[in-house]
């Protein structure tokens, strides 16, 4: 029995769901762009945790490989995201997203 399986699977499921929900709420309610990025990372890492737990319980390595894909893509996304944020910051001198309200009907 591997170290991961000391804890029952349902607890992992619960923990990931809670972490994911915190991430979702962070994206919806926080107004600082950097914190929104952090919340998105939290969402993705909750998913990673879930993948690793399932992978261990199913004795199947595919889930862990998927985690590497997610990590690589998340890194690329944050790189692009921070570049876009820098571009916004140069034009507005703030990271508060309330300034971004030019486009609406």
């Amino acid at each position, binding site marked *: 029995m591997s170290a991961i399986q000391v804890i029952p699977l349902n607890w992992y*499921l619960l923990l*990931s769901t809670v972490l*994911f929900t915190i*991430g*979702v709420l962070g*994206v919806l309610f926080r107004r600082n*762009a950097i914190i*929104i990025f952090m919340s*998105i990372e939290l*969402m*993705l890492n*909750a*998913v990673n945790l*879930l*993948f690793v737990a*399932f992978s261990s*319980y*199913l004795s*199947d390595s*595919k*889930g862990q*490989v*998927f985690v590497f*894909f*997610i990590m690589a*893509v998340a890194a*690329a*996304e944050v790189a*692009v*995201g921070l*570049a*876009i*944020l820098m*571009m*916004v910051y140069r*034009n*507005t001198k703030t990271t508060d*997203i309330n300034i*971004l*309200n*030019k*486009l*609406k*009907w």
Partner: protein
Amino acid sequence: MKALILLSSLGTLALLAEIFGFKKRIFLISLLGLITIFFVNLLDWNLAPNIFFGMMQYDHYAVAFSSVILITAILWFIMSESFFKEETNRTDRLSLVLFALAGAVIMVSYTNMAMLFLGIEILSISMYILTGTLKDDLNSNEAAFKYLIMGAFSTGFLLFGIALIYGATGSFDINEIKEFITARESTVPSIFYVGVLLMLIGLSFKVSAAPFHFWAPDVYQGAPTVITAFMATIVKTAAFAAFLRLFSISFSDITATWVNIVWVMTALTLLVGNITAVAQTSTKRLLAFSSVAHTGYMLLALLADNSYSSSAILFYVTAYSFGSIVTFCILNIIINTYGNDNINSFNGLGKSNPLLAFVMTLALLSLAGIPPTAGFFAKYYVFTAVFKSGFIYLVLIAIFASLVGVYYYFKIIIAMYFKDSTNETIQATMNQKILLVVVAFAIIALGIFPDFIIRLL
């Protein structure tokens, strides 16, 4: 498969052009390369190989949709030549577009959830950057930022769904998931159903179906016009092909879990898209809402989930892409002349440039679904597919929605022919004129001989 490899190589070549100093010629090289890739792609018809260790399958569905994507890309390249004329960032823009196309090809041919995820991300990350290409324009910044946040947010939902489905079935392969459901009909764990719903939410964000459409109008309006055209045609085609592939292969045996949700989403998308479009004064935003509305029509075929679905959607995206390319090409010319995209800018186009006005009218009629254009048969096939599955009320809603659609498309046509212009001359380049005439012929040809595409799948 060859298309994917060649597209990625072409994208890398475009990056190398900056170093080895042939960036003056790289646009032409890319365009010729795309035309070559289009024909090479057709050679894969009937081969149906399982490629990359069964992670992708290049079946008829994949070849047909990637051909639509590639032909739209060729037309898009011709219309957006000026986008690649600037001295700086020329090669970056080109390679990002080519990588986005590679992502789109992955999205139409995946059989493994990992490839679905990678395809979506390759496409999306390139699009985030392209949306923000006008670095000093605050609208472009805002659009890029919103697109990035909403894209990453929806990816989170998609991944959580994939994780739960993996936990239930132990597989990422869409065919194995189908076998799993067939084998254990009544004892599928409940997390599987949660996973299906989360994936549904994630993919609805990507195709901009209501109530997850709110980012689309903002992003479409803020992005450079040519990139908006790219998003409205190629990205939508790829996202929808991916959506349909997943739901028609993996989840078609458990329609009971998602059919009601998709029903409501379809009705909402049709009504919200069409009715909100009526109130718009910015043409770009109007076309953005019209693109949301067209997602609704495509969702109808997805909901039908029968043997007509894929050919109906293939025809729909073809007709819709051709119509959109024309409208955005002309809109781009208008924006470059007047500096704004208000509907009033179209006033008197019928007198000042009859060719543009005529082609624009034809494209708008096609988008509105009026015979003898391609759009009429596109709607006809979609409605037939959904009618055969027994969703009669939804067909009525869709017909009502198309009537509303006719109203706002005619607003532009009326502005062009019945209002006086401010007497500015509007000039299209020779390439643009050829493009417009060719696509106009294609729209009419597809309206007269729709069988050509419908028989493919």
